[in-house]
């Protein structure tokens, strides 16, 4: 049987995913995606899959998030370096 915690976790997960997909600000979207990864790790714990939880926390949330943020920094920095631009994409 599912408890209220599972119910809440699943709904939060979906909300975070919608946020990550719909957010206008790309930085916010990536941060939400990292939160999504951490929540996923929690879900894996609830599903009694500690191996996946470890991998998800390290790779899914951590590494992918860092890669995405680094790329965003790259896009913004390069964008700013171009003449005639004031705002990041």
């Amino acid at each position, binding site marked *: *049987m*599912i408890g209220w915690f*599972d*119910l809440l976790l*699943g709904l939060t*997960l*979906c909300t975070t*995913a*919608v946020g*990550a*997909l719909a957010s206008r600000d*790309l930085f916010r*979207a*990536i941060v939400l*995606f990292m939160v*999504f990864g951490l929540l*996923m790790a929690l*879900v*894996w714990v*609830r*599903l*009694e*899959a500690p*191996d*996946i939880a470890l*991998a*998800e926390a390290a*790779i*899914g949330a951590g*590494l*992918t998030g860092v*890669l*995405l943020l680094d*790329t*965003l920094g*790259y*896009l913004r920095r*390069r*964008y700013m370096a*171009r003449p005639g631009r004031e705002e990041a*994409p």
Partner: protein
Amino acid sequence: MSGGAWYAWVGVALSTLGFFGFVVHRHLVRRLLAFNIMGSGCFLLLVGLAGDGRAIDPVAQALVLTGIVVAVASTALALVLLRRWYRVSGESVLPEDV
């Protein structure tokens, strides 16, 4: 409903959401976010359904571990390509037609 089945439904929702985001967005970083969310939904579906009302399924868990590594490799490769593409074109979306 067991926990497995509930999370399988969450997986269905996430896959659908991710699919939608992947098709709708143009910005490449956003499409990669959508791809990862869709992948997560897919993994949830796999483990949730396999563990529904039965013993924990180590096979499904191993498959998902493999899937996660493949997904991170694909994402990293896509980001490398994106940065190289951005460097020569200044665009973070793909040209509509070639």
